[in-house]
Structures are given as structure tokens and as C-alpha cells.
């Protein structure tokens, strides 16, 4: 019941976030203009700004933010580690390197169904590297070791991106910012469609794994006694959560801390039942990233702050508090 109420509140929050995102921007439009445009009765210019420029961007924010938060919640459950999330584990970095490589080799145009695939390959490579490093150091996957290997792998992929951009073409230097700090500026209906096609089914699949994740967060042994196919669930959840993160990274670049802050915020209020935590994380993440993008666009308009700057300003203090607590425990 509480979950439903919270879900309804967050759903309203998402709708409001999208509305504000469509309402405000570099150009002042009246609420009337915006509503008329949304109803398909606005002037050509207003309609273009609202329907072709702001709305796809807001929806991309919902999908990417929701996907990152959900993936973060899943990684935290799988690793039984509060600091796990795609960015800190280096998975976003791997996905970005995969996407940049595909673009630089001309394998795919900027908006293509293949781009998330290349990002996914990079994400899987990052996971393999992070866990390879962490396990070779300490089989129990200690928090500190895992974070350290995530940082190392993340730095490695940042270097790969810088190298690819240096080798490719001088003018791609500008877009390096996109890949390293993230931006929703490239949003079009097509990119929204591609991200939705990857993210939504993957999210449904992860929601279906919620019960198994509940059991596994108690302990893998307990979970297997209670009839969970632990290995299958683990592989599936890692793969699908990486896919979700990769799809977002492919079109919005590396955006940090959403996967960390949001699930923890939700957990603080609603407890850690994944059947509630996962859907609420998606909604909260979607609303959060859309609002963060609104700030990124409006604060220094018409210039834009990279969205990763906004999420980091919120996320880094939060991360430090969590790190302190978790290392004390």
C-alpha cells in the first residue's frame, strides 16, 4: 500500500519534471503556448521547440535517469554493496568507450540501433575487468577492493576515450565532453525510441527478478536453499542491468551518481524490498535526471553545463557520507 502511494507520488513527480522541462528553456514561452503546442494547436515555432526539442529531451532524461537508477539498485543488490553503481564500477566508462570506438570507426552513425550494442560490449568488458581485478586481489569482493578496481578500470576507459578521440579527428575533441560528463542535448525522437526499445523491456525483466534479488541480498546460500537459481539470476541481472546502463550511455554519455543517490534515497524512505525499490528507483531516477537537465540548461542559458556536473554536485557529498558509514561498519 505504502509502495503504491509512493509510486503514485513519484509518477506525478515524473510528469511534473517532464512538464517543467518542457515549460522552461533558453527561450521564454508562456504556459499557454506550451499547452497549445502539446495539444498540437500551437504555432509552428513554439510547436517545434516544445515537441521536437524539449519533449524528446525530457523523455530521454526520464529513460536514462530511470535506467541508471534501476541498474544501480540491481548492482547494489547483487554485490550486497551500497556503493555499487554503473559509474563507480567503471561500467558506464566501458560503455562510453565502446560507443566512441564504434563512432570513430564509422561502424555506426550517431543515431543507430547498433550504438547501444557497441556500448553494451564495452560495458561487459568493463564488468569482466573490474571483477577480474577485484577477485584476483580478494575473493570476497571487499568493498574497498571493488571500488578501487572500479576506479582503475574507469580511468583506463577514460584514457581509451581520450586516445580514440585524439586519433580520430581533431574536431571530435568537443564531443569528448559529452562522453565524459554526459549530455542530453542530442535528444531526438529517434534516439528516444532507440533507448526506450532497449531500456523498457530490460527494466521489466529486472522487475521480474525482484523477488530473487530480495533473497540474494540476504545471502546467496540462503537464496539457493529457497529455490533460487542463483547463478542464472546473477548472470541475467548483471547482463540486463549493464544493457540498461549501456543504452543510456550510448545516447547521453557518462552520467555519474544517479545510480547511487537515487536507490539509496528510495531505500531510506521505503526500505529495501526490491519489488518496491526497483520500480520506485526507476521513477525517482527519471524525475531526478530530467530536473538535473533542466538546471543544466537554464542556469547559464543559452550555454549549457554538462549534466554530469549537476549530478556530481548532488552525488559526491552523498557518496562521501555513504563511504564513511560503510567503512565504519
Amino acid at each position: 500500500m505504502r509502495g503504491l502511494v509512493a509510486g503514485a507520488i513519484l509518477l506525478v513527480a515524473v510528469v511534473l519534471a517532464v512538464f517543467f522541462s518542457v515549460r522552461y528553456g533558453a527561450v521564454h514561452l508562456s504556459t499557454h503556448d506550451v499547452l497549445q503546442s502539446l495539444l498540437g494547436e500551437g504555432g509552428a515555432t513554439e510547436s517545434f521547440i516544445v515537441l521536437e526539442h524539449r519533449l524528446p529531451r525530457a523523455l530521454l532524461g526520464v529513460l536514462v535517469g530511470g535506467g541508471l537508477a534501476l541498474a544501480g539498485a540491481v548492482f547494489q543488490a547483487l554485490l550486497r554493496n551500497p556503493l555499487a553503481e554503473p559509474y563507480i564500477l567503471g561500467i558506464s566508462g566501458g560503455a562510453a568507450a565502446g560507443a566512441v570506438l564504434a563512432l570513430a570507426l564509422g561502424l555506426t552513425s550517431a543515431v543507430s540501433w547498433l550504438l547501444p550494442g557497441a556500448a553494451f560490449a564495452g560495458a561487459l568488458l568493463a564488468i569482466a575487468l573490474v571483477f577480474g581485478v577485484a577477485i584476483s586481489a580478494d575473493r570476497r569482493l571487499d568493498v574497498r577492493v571493488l571500488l578501487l578496481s572500479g576506479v582503475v578500470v574507469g580511468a583506463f576507459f577514460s584514457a581509451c576515450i581520450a586516445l580514440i578521440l585524439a586519433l580520430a579527428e581533431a574536431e571530435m575533441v568537443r564531443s569528448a565532453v559529452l562522453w565524459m560528463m554526459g549530455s542530453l542535448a542530442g535528444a531526438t525522437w529517434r534516439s528516444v525510441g532507440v533507448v526506450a526499445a532497449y531500456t523498457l523491456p530490460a527494466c521489466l525483466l529486472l522487475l521480474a527478478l525482484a523477488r530473487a534479488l530480495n533473497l540474494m541480498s540476504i545471502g546467496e546460500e540462503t537464496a539457493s536453499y529457497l529455490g533460487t537459481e542463483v547463478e542464472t539470476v546473477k548472470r541475467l541481472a548483471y547482463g540486463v542491468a549493464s544493457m540498461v546502463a549501456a543504452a543510456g550511455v550510448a545516447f547521453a554519455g557518462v552520467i555519474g551518481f544517479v545510480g547511487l543517490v537515487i536507490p539509496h534515497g528510495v531505500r531510506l524512505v521505503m526500505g529495501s524490498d526490491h519489488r518496491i525499490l526497483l520500480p520506485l528507483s526507476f521513477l525517482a531516477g527519471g524525475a531526478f535526471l530530467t530536473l538535473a537537465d533542466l538546471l543544466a540548461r537554464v542556469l547559464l542559458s543559452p550555454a549549457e553545463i554538462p549534466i554530469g556536473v549537476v549530478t556530481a554536485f548532488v552525488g559526491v557529498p552523498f557518496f562521501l557520507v555513504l563511504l564513511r558509514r560503510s567503512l565504519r561498519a
Partner: protein
Amino acid sequence: MNPLRDFLSPGLPLGLVAILLLVGCQDPDPSAGQDDREMTPPEAHTPPDRQDPTTTPEEEGWPRTLQDQAGRTLELTHPPTRIVSLVPAATAILLELGATDRLVGRTDYDDAPTLEDVPSVGGGLNPSIERLVVLEPELVVRFEGQQDRATPRALDRAGITHLAVRPDGIDDIREMALLLGRALGRMERARELLTRMDQELEEVRDRVAHAPRPRVAFLLGGDPPWVVGPGTFLHELLEIAGGENALAELEAPLYAPVSVEEILRQEVDLILALEGAQIPSALRRLPLVQLPEGVQSPGVDIGRSAREISRKLHPEEWR
């Protein structure tokens, strides 16, 4: 200069960002790598072979079809009355063509006093699409280059006609001026501008024809410094002004960073740099000649720029 824009372009020195925004493009274009674009006197000028707007009959009516510098074809049904220029050099030409009242949008880099009241759409690359669209332009003049692939796409989606320009070399500047003249229906004035430009360049060339030619490294700032390559109008201006581009043999056709060691190896007589450009310490022992800002604008003022460069290189010839 907007500090945020520099923040958004990490690794590029402040002055260079301005140049890239003014010059527009730096992507390697094999066709731009030729070193043999000698200026010819106006009467003997052979128009660029890509397109020849000069042969267009003067009484050409509307609608008219243009081929822009990206090779795109666009049709104008009437002379556009609402123009947004994202290219400062093109803006300057539009002003010269008497189109001040038709300009409804500019960039942060246009500082002509007549444009003070014209709203800005931000930078020339990746401008604010919202601000651009809301001006309801009939024609947008934009850079052709890979740094900004989003803007042409957005303009296409918005159904706004855009004319791509790419003022790399002097011939490209010439073509840009004629394209703008045709787009406005003011070919005669565009030709006059070019004639004046050619005369100014010729005057500079004649003045220093017999002077010894120093080997010059033309630096745009940064460390390693970005240099002027052989496919650029700045290279051509340097040669017209009586200098030899010491770095013309390097592979970069347009603008590119080059190691300090490479510059030292080229037996450079002197360093030419824009005022305020950062000079790596290893190059400070070479004689330095500074150029005032504005020289780097690829517009019809290049005659003045050539004279400015020539005066600095050959003060004795200009006495």
C-alpha cells in the same frame, strides 16, 4: 569571451577557441591540402571549379538554386528578409552587402556596434537551437564541419533553410562572399567587395615582391602550439605578405597542434602569433612578431590582414 565556452572545449587554448569559431573548421579535408592556390590579379582570376556563381546572369530571377559549400543544393523563393548568421566572417560580409536590417540573429562573437541590438543565439558552433528557431529565420548561415553535426539536423527538422559555408582558403572566402551575394540578390556588391579585396591583396604582394622572405611559424596559441597549415587563408596571407610558412610541409592541411621540437627543427626565422597567444617557453628565444586581434577573421577584410602581417614582417618596405 565566454569562460564557460572555454570550459566546454577542454584542451583548446582560449585564443584558439575563438579562432576555430571564427574560422569554423579544422577537419582534414584532402582537397584543402593543396599549397598552390596562388592569388591571381582580379582580371585574370579563375573562379573555383567546385562551383561558379560568377557566371550566373545578373538578371537571374527568383526562385534561384544555390549550391552551398557543403555541396548541398538549396532553393530560395525570394531574397530572405530574416537571416541568422552563425559565422562571424559571413556576418561581416552580410553587413558589407547592406543586409544589416535583414540580420535577426548573430553569435556571441559578433561585436560590430551595429549588431548590438540583434539577439545572439550563443556560439556559432552548437548554438541554442531554441533561441535560433524562435527568431523564425528564413535563412541560417552556418559552418560546415564535423564539430557541430547537431545544428544542421535540428534546422532540417525545423524546416529552416540553411546555407553552409566553409571559409578555409581565400578561394573559399571568395566563394562564400559570392554565395551570400547571390542569396541576397546582391551579386554586384559582392563582386565589388571581391574586387576591392583582390586589389588590396595585390597591393601587398607587389609591395614586398622583392624583399627577402623569412621562414615563419604562425602560431595560434596552446602548448603544444596549434599552427597554420597550407590549406588555410592565413597561410595564403602569410605568403602574400612576404613570408614563407615554415610549417607548410607538415601533414596538417588546416589547423593542428605541432610539437615544439618539430617547429625548432624547421629552421624558423621568426614566430608570428596573435596578441595574447601563449608561446611555449622553448620557442621564446626566437624573434616574436605579434598580430592584433581581428587578423584571424576569414572575411573580406583579409586585404587589411595581409597588410598588417606584411607591415610586421617587412617594416622597411612599408616606410
